[in-house]
């Protein structure tokens, strides 16, 4: 706009002015182009020409003094077929003789291929520096000469060149997006700033809103699974709102937390729940993977950093967007369990086998009257098992087809001075598990205002309220696991309407004496317990930017995250007899509060000196968090009418509080030469309250370099490689997810009773460690980006090698110290890996087809452990994981079963446990010493996959677009901890359907895998073995989305500007041999730092009954006004 106005102003007087310019020039054998260029400098007049018209051979030799411009031009052009013309606006045009040059007015509108106007498109006269840009509505106008060629260019879109005709005219242009070009010029958010992708020297994966806009996940990271090489995003539990486990580039820690750091609009938050950010508000998610990118986050960067940036309106017209979605969720993959008939036979055989084995002369045919109580079998099972039919499928009882609704409204826009975005969203999700639900209200206001040329202020304010009830995710003793364990012959309701056989009024009460009849009725946990969880999260950012001088900017911000949670539960007295015990009523209230605030102050200097560009960042930040939690329990409720605690008597309560704080200094220099050679160096210094008094402060340096080879001259002449860039980086980052008070010797309550009243007691509960500090990860990253055939094909390959040392370990110490472990920084783990991604535009044109493929592999190896490299062995309900030097972290460690003994001869011929009988498992003599004992335990698997991969194909035609994503994980194992209940006889619980193929006799040996059932399984049968470990290789049709953007010809008859309808299907199909719901299920969160006992991260890939990941199909419509 500015240039255009300028040109018009010049118009009237300029021509005569130029005519009168006088020039002095002396040239010898100079090329035409060079001569004209010299003339421009001497005369201060612009000369326009088409380079192709200038004959190369012509050399000018002349010596003129104080000559009028038109004459000088004649002199220069005398040996050519060219003439010059001075235009009204004073410009000089050089054209072939016989061509009439005139000024034309050209105007028009530039839109993208979706019909949206494109503001800021550069419109240039080819071969010149003249041109303009489009305004907020995509309009432009320009005065040019006939025959000029206009080039329309815009970042991320293919250039278009149009030749102007012979009269004033309107030229409307539709620009087409390009993949490669877009990528290179895309803005990537890095720590404390942004960079163009061209300048990125570290390893950063960036995902924009368009990549997840139609996805129905409540947490944006769920939608990113499979899209980011090197970033493993696992939906460990399928409950709405449950957090995926994110691991960036392998497992670098055993005891400390492994969650990445989340940075939401500049606020770094550990273990943040991204459900509090509405995905529709997110502009981009940038994942910093390598240590050079994350080192700017210092002691918190080692697990990678996920930067979430929310939207802000764009200058120009106001956009109103409304989205409505309706969906339905189903558990499509069920666990195959025994039905009532199979179960009854299993029950009878388990009792008879045990009875026969319990003493000499005992027979399977012995009646109950001669058996001791544990061996008795209900008469119904022996006389009339048929009465139970197939029984109850408890999965059908607990799971249901569940609807979800989602409504969003956002308004965004802005002027040069002020930009804003307001949004509101409401998600109402019924869960597939009975009585469960998830409702989220999110409101956001982002505003940025330019007060003056020097000052800009802004604020982002987001409020999220979540109301939910989520059961079934705690594993072992939660609804999903218990429901599977319930015996199938029991009815959903007894004839009295109660839920279980413990109802004395029911005929089913006859089963009570059999203590191994198991029932955990799902309804006794979902409907007989009233539960409400309410969480409120407010995230606020306010900032002030001050431009001190050109290029130098100061920024100060205050950020805060305030979280409150209240959980209420009330269990009805007796729970309608559906639970394994008739429990009294109980009410529980839990409260949690957390306030995290951050003060951040930075100074940035951005300047280009000729071919040198410099960007310097200096910063100081201070952050603090306080967490509080309390709980109260009431008992002795008179009835179930009032569920608040005051109706009963409070029987217990407690409250806890903890704090941490951190002060940091940071600095970074980015430098590039000719936008082709890039260098970056950064350092951060962190001081944290979590670290020991002898190690309060840490430095985290990094450096990286990049070389854009394709911009070199020697690459100019070839067409094949359009982009080639090499990147290398090295950095040091830390992991501070260690306990808040690890270095301190803490006192814990241990009360006694004195004189009939409670007497407070305190004792020391941990060994202190003054030198406790963060874990350090040093990572080297090498990357190459390649664009081929005008960026039709883009490849990125990266290799990294990262070594984490000072690993935070609860190092085992002799128990005679009074403690089993001491939290120490010791040990080393290496992760090295390779990431590859490919993006190919297979078909362009009306029918477009794009393929995105990625593959990542990581190899994890423990290099060093505690004193003497003693292996770490953790046991959780039989399952053992062992971490030892030379092996990946957390190998599953147990016995190897080689099938089932068919007969006594086979037992006699092999090493076996004393007393083994036919039908019991063959345990491999791993160490070959001829006996079976604890020394025969060995590595029997690991949850870490050999590699993971995903492929997305996107098609579009006219208004239709279709995306199909297939994801896979290969070569890992999963421990099915439910084997303890469902694979082995365990107190009468139901079992997997395939367990029914158990050994019955020598002539009927079953499938050779499942041993003979007994109510007294042998120690070896109950031990952790290959019987529990399954392949976790899977392939998943993860996502299909089909959208249709209504053509403008239809839309223009409506008040809307654009309408799009779509169908999105998540988790469409899973190919896996895994017995339970999903091989991605992990019961134990990988996040919590642990002071003692089992670090939960060590049990990654152990499934103790997890919530299935449902298939979700949503129908949506998005309307822009």
């Amino acid at each position, binding site marked *: 706009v500015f240039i255009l106005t300028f040109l018009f102003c010049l118009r009237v007087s300029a021509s005569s002015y130029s005519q009168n310019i006088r020039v002095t020039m002396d040239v010898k054998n100079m090329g035409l182009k060079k001569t004209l260029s010299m003339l421009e400098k001497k005369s201060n007049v612009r000369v326009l020409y088409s380079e192709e018209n200038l004959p190369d051979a012509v050399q000018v030799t002349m010596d003129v003094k104080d000559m009028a411009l038109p004459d000088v031009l004649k002199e220069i052009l005398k040996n050519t077929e060219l003439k010059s013309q001075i235009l009204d606006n004073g410009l000089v045009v050089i054209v072939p003789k016989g061509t009439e040059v005139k000024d034309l007015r050209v105007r028009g509108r530039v839109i993208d291929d979706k019909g949206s106007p494109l503001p800021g498109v550069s419109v240039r006269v080819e071969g010149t520096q003249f041109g303009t840009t489009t305004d907020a509505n995509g309009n432009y106008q320009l005065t040019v000469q006939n025959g000029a060629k206009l080039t329309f260019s815009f970042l991320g879109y293919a250039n278009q060149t149009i030749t102007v005709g012979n009269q004033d005219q309107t030229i409307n242009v539709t620009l087409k997006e390009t993949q490669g070009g877009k990528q290179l010029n895309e803005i990537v958010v890095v720590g404390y700033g942004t960079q163009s992708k061209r300048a990125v020297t570290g390893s950063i994966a960036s995902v924009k809103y368009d990549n997840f806009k139609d996805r129905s996940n409540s947490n944006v990271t769920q939608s990113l699974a499979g899209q980011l090489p090197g970033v493993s995003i696992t939906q460990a539990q399928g409950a709405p709102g449950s957090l995926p486990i994110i691991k960036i580039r392998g497992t670098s820690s055993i005891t400390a937390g492994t969650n990445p750091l989340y940075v939401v609009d500049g606020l770094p938050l550990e273990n943040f729940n991204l459900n509090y950010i509405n995905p529709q508000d997110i502009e981009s998610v940038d994942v910093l993977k390598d240590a050079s990118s994350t080192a700017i986050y210092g002691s918190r960067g080692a697990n990678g950093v996920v930067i979430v940036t929310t939207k802000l309106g764009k200058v120009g017209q106001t956009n109103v967007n409304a989205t409505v979605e309706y969906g339905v969720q189903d558990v499509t993959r069920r666990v195959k369990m025994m039905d009532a008939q199979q179960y009854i036979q299993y029950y009878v055989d388990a009792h008879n086998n045990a009875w026969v084995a319990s003493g000499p002369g005992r027979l399977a045919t012995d009646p109950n009257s001669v058996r001791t*109580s*544990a061996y008795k079998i209900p008469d119904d099972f022996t006389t009339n098992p048929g009465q139970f039919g197939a029984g109850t499928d408890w999965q059908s009882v607990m799971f249901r087809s569940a609807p979800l609704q989602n409504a969003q409204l956002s308004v965004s826009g802005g002027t040069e001075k002020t930009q804003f975005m307001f949004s509101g969203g409401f998600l109402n999700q019924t869960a597939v598990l009975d009585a469960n639900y998830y409702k989220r209200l999110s409101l956001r206001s982002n505003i940025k205002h330019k007060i003056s040329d020097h000052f800009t202020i802004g604020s982002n304010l987001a409020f999220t309220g979540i109301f939910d009830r989520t059961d079934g995710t705690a594993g072992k003793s939660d609804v999903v696991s218990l429901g599977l364990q319930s015996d199938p012959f029991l009815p959903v309701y007894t004839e009295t309407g109660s839920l279980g056989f*413990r109802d*004395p009024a029911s005929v089913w*009460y006859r089963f*009570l*004496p059999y*203590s*191994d009849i198991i029932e955990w009725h799902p309804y006794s946990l979902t409907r007989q317990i009233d539960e409400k969880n309410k969480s409120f999260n407010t995230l606020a950012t306010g900032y002030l930017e001050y431009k001190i001088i050109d290029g130098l900017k100061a920024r100060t911000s205050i950020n805060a995250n305030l979280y409150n949670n209240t959980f209420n539960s009330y269990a009805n007295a007796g729970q309608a007899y559906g639970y*394994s*015990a*008739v*429990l009294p009523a*109980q009410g529980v209230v839990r409260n949690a509060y957390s306030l995290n605030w951050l003060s951040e102050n930075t100074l940035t200097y951005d300047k280009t000196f000729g071919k040198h560009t410099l960007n310097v960042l200096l910063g100081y930040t201070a952050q603090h968090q306080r967490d509080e939690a309390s709980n109260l329990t009431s*008992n002795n409720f008179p009835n179930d009418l009032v569920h608040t605690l005051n109706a009963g*008597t409070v*029987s*217990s309560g*407690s409250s806890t509080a903890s704090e941490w704080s951190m002060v940091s200094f940071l600095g970074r220099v980015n430098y590039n030469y000719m936008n082709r050679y890039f260098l970056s160096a950064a350092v951060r210094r962190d001081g944290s309250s979590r670290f020991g008094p002898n190690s309060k402060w840490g430095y985290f340096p990094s450096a990286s370099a990049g070389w854009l080879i394709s911009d070199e001259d020697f690459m100019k002449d070839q067409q094949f490689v359009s982009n080639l860039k090499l990147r290398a980086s090295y950095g040091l980052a830390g992991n501070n997810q260690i306990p808040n*008070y690890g270095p*301190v*010797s*803490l*006192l814990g309550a*241990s*009360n*006694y*009773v*004195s*004189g*009939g*009243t*409670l*007497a407070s*007691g*305190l*004792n*020391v509960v941990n*060994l*202190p460690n003054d030198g406790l500090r963060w874990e350090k990860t040093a990572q080297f990253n090498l990357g190459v980006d390649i664009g081929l055939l005008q960026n039709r094909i883009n490849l990125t390959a990266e290799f990294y090698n990262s070594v984490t040392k000072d690993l935070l370990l609860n*190092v*085992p110490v*002799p*128990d*005679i*110290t*009074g*403690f089993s472990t*001491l939290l120490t920084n010791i040990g080393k783990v290496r992760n090295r890996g390779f990431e590859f991604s490919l993006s190919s535009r297979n078909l362009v044109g009306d029918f477009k087809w794009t393929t995105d493929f990625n593959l990542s592999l990581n190899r994890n190896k423990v290099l060093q452990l505690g004193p003497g490299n*003693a292996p770490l062995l953790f*046991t959780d309900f039989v399952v053992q994981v062992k971490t030892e030097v030379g092996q990946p972290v957390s190998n599953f460690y147990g016995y190897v079963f080689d099938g089932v003994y068919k007969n006594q001869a086979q037992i006699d011929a092999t090493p076996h446990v004393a007393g083994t009988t036919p039908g019991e498992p063959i345990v491999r003599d791993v160490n070959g010493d001829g006996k079976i*004992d*604890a020394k025969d335990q060995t590595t029997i698997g690991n949850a870490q996959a050999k590699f993971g991969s995903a492929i997305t194909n996107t098609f579009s035609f006219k208004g239709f677009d279709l995306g199909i994503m297939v994801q896979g994980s290969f070569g890992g194992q999963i421990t099915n901890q439910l084997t303890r209940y469902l694979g082995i006889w*365990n*107190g009468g619980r139901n079992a997997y359907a395939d367990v029914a193929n158990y050994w019955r006799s020598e002539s009927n040996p079953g499938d050779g895998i499942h041993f003979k059932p007994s109510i*007294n399984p*042998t*120690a070896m049968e*109950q*031990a952790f073995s290959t019987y529990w470990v399954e392949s976790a290789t899977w392939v998943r049709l993860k996502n299909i989305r089909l959208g249709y953007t209504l053509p403008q010809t239809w839309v223009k008859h409506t008040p809307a500007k654009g309408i799009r309808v779509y169908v999105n299907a998540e988790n469409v199909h899973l190919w896996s041999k895994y017995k339970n719901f999903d091989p991605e299920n992990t019961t134990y969160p990988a996040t919590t730092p642990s002071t003692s006992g089992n670090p939960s991260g060590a049990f990654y890939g152990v499934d103790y009954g997890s919530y299935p990941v449902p298939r979700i199909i949503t129908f949506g419509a998005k309307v822009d006004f």
Partner: protein
Amino acid sequence: NANNFYKTKADFEVAINSAYATLYTIYAPEEAASYGELRSDDATIGSVAGAQADKWAIRDYTVSASNTLIYQYWQEYYKSMFTINNILDQIQTAGLDPAYTARVQGEMMFLRGLYYYNMVQLWGGIPLVTKVVSADEAYKIMRSSEADTYKQIVADLKFAVANLPLANAVPAVGRASKGAAETVLGKVYLSLGDKTSATTVLMDVYNSNQYGLLTSYASLWGATVKNTKESVFEIQYLGGSASNPYSPYWTAFAPVTNGVITKYGGGINQVTDDLYNEYESGDPRRDASIELGYNDAKGNFVAIKFPKKWEDRTAPSSGTQELSNNNFMVLRYADVLLLLTEATGDPQYMNQVRGRAGVPAYGTAGYPSAKYGTLALALEHERRVELALEFHRWFDLKRTGRLVTVLSAKGKAINQNNQFFPIPQYVITQNSAITQNNGYN
């Protein structure tokens, strides 16, 4: 945190409470002491839901070094030792008045002597830790011989005897007294075969005028019966609230999934017919000690024998736990009397116990001398019925050297090696210089 604690007497009183609180773990119903009962002929396990091999292995003498419960006991004993030793270390440098310091040291050494005595019976010679030790120091502490372990125990208890007040002068009910220390010391002497020294200390208890038998055996038991004159050392519980240290015995000893008398039964130490039949006819102690079963929700009687002594049927409950109020007597005067007979060979003390039960005195006409022909056998019988299910049986048989004889006669697959638990495999893995007990390699 610990740096600003352990300064004043008030601090130490709070710290001492935590030392006494270790009794809750050591004498918990699913702990080593209780499993001694399980290993004897008195008790078995009810059909435990989610039956774990480790529990059955203890009952059946098939434990291996990798048994997780054994390792748990080991950890818990040494965890308690840390608490005790830490107080001993701290009070030495606290500069409080000497009388107070001596009494606190006496109390701590009483607990340490008691625990090491339990441990030497469970494992034989053990690594002796008598101060707070670092990890590095710990690697250098090997198992002491059984004799040296006893030396430490005797030294601790002697110090306690010398520095603890009589029962009527303890700072609070439940705290260790001179009599308590003497009783344990007497038992230790008997274990060492030193009847003379045992007689001396036990007679001191006998003549202290601090203790006596209650008139009726049944009145010893109940949720509100606490700290009677028969009690020598008693663990203090407080029921009624989940945040109190409530008594765990009733829930744990009730039959599994009875769902009527308790919300959830532990099924530990279910009574054998063998114990039930041990009682002489008309001995009221049988029915005061053993329940024959319970009525289910329909009122039908379910026959299963389980311990009665710690019943608290009116206890409120929280979750699956009854918040019972019953205390647990580690030592009581009847035990002292029976030990005195053991030490002196004089049946008069035992006969006081029999007299209270209303059964004929040893040596009189009505006594079943055909069955219990010697005083030793009579004592064995008397201790079994008088102290039934109070965690004594296994240790009594072991002290008198009768373990294998008595139990194998009842068809149990026990051998000499089973008198000790294995040293947990994990302990040896960690420090391979620690030796294993016989039969567990």
